[in-house]
Every structure is written in structure tokens, then in C-alpha cells.
């Protein structure tokens, strides 16, 4: 039994839900979280977006440069949605593939992370079933 914790973009929530239902995920819990990832070391990855954002901003704002830099290099916390899904061991690769496929974007950064955590036991409150039957 495994718990899959996936942190994904807010605008990919419906896609993720649809993908999870598609591969037969019984149920899931979703939380609003704030998160940040690794610092961007390779600046060429974000160069294109930086240019777009700078073009959008008004030139008379003196700290635009600083804000855009902070916005892209990964030091700020951004809103994300955290899904936790319980899965049987053999379903884990299937679920991960579904989540990855649903959340991939062309931006190369900020698409999220998936963690697979071992779970010792689960109990269904209604019937007191435990173990694999409770998923």
C-alpha cells in the first residue's frame, strides 16, 4: 500500500482529477498549499519567460527587474494543489504516469513533484475494513 503525494499547478487540478479517475483511483484528498522548488541554476530555461514578463510590465516601475527575477528563480512560494491518493503497490506506476502526463507543460520548471510514501495500514471507518480492502 502506497500513498502518492502530488503537488501540481492550480490550473491543472481538473486535468489531474480527470486523469486519476481515468486510471481508476478510488478517491483522493486535495489541499491548497504554497510551495517552491529547486533554485533555477540554468538561467536559459527561464530566459524566454523573463523576457515576456518584462515586456508586460510598465517601464516606470523601478523594482520590476527585481520582482520578475524573484518570480522566476524559485525563491518565492507559489500556490499549488497537493493531492494525496492511496494506491495498491501494483497501481503506483500507472497513477504516476497519469499524473505526469496530465501536468506536463512546456515551461520546464514548476510543474510539480510526486512523492511515493509507504503506508502501513488504512482503515475504512464505515466498515472497519483494514489493509488493502480499505483502499
Amino acid at each position: 500500500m502506497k500513498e502518492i503525494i502530488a503537488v501540481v499547478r492550480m490550473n491543472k487540478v481538473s486535468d489531474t482529477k480527470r486523469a486519476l479517475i481515468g486510471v481508476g483511483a478510488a478517491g483522493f484528498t486535495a489541499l491548497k498549499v504554497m510551495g517552491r522548488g529547486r533554485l533555477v541554476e540554468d538561467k536559459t530555461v527561464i530566459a524566454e519567460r523573463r523576457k515576456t514578463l518584462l515586456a508586460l510590465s510598465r517601464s516606470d516601475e523601478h523594482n520590476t527587474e527585481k520582482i520578475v527575477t524573484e518570480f522566476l528563480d524559485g525563491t518565492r512560494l507559489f500556490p499549488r494543489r497537493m493531492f494525496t491518493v492511496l494506491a495498491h503497490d501494483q497501481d503506483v506506476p500507472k497513477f504516476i504516469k497519469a499524473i505526469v502526463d496530465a501536468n506536463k507543460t512546456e515551461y520546464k520548471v514548476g510543474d510539480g513533484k510526486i512523492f511515493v510514501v509507504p503506508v502501513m495500514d488504512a482503515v475504512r471507518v464505515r466498515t472497519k475494513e483494514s489493509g488493502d480492502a480499505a483502499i
Partner: protein
Amino acid sequence: MIMVRAIIRPDKKDAILYELSSAGFNAATVYDVVGRGKQKGIKFGDVIYDEIPKSLIMLVVNDEDKDDVLEVILQHAKVGENGSFGDGKIFVSSIDEVYTVSSGAAGL
């Protein structure tokens, strides 16, 4: 890999995140929680507050970085020289696998 979940005072959140980033652990997920601890909440007269707001910082790091992360959090999460009730708790659990969505690759 291990997952560190630290329940800390909300007003210490920014400081800890800054220090973690300086120590090389930039990636983190943060959300707000409510909870109570061993002291059964706070009692003022007849009123008991047992849903005390806290922040939860969740980060996943390599096994060998565990001590560094704990050191940073423990050092900056406490109030006063010796710490106080309500400074929080840190939970460490194991992680089987990690995937990055943008590349689909396994690993941090």
C-alpha cells in the same frame, strides 16, 4: 530519501524558509494547519484553545541531508533561549520514490 514535516509557529515560517533556502534546501511545500500538543492546548480562565494555528513545512531531501535540515529548523523554530511550549514538532518519514513532473524522471 526522507520526508521532513515540521509543524512550527506561523510567525517563524518566513525565517525558517529563508534559512533553509540559504542552507541549500530551497524546495518546500507549506500549508497552514491547526492542532494541539502535549499541553492540551492553552487555557485562559475557563476558555480552552485546543485548535492552535500552526504552519507545516514539508520537504523531501536525501538521507545524508537529514541532520542539516533538522539543525536549521530546530535552531530557528524556537522562541527564547531554551525554547518554549508550542514551538512545534518535526516528523521524519521515509519516501520510496520521487518523480519530477516536468521531466517525468525519478529522483529529486
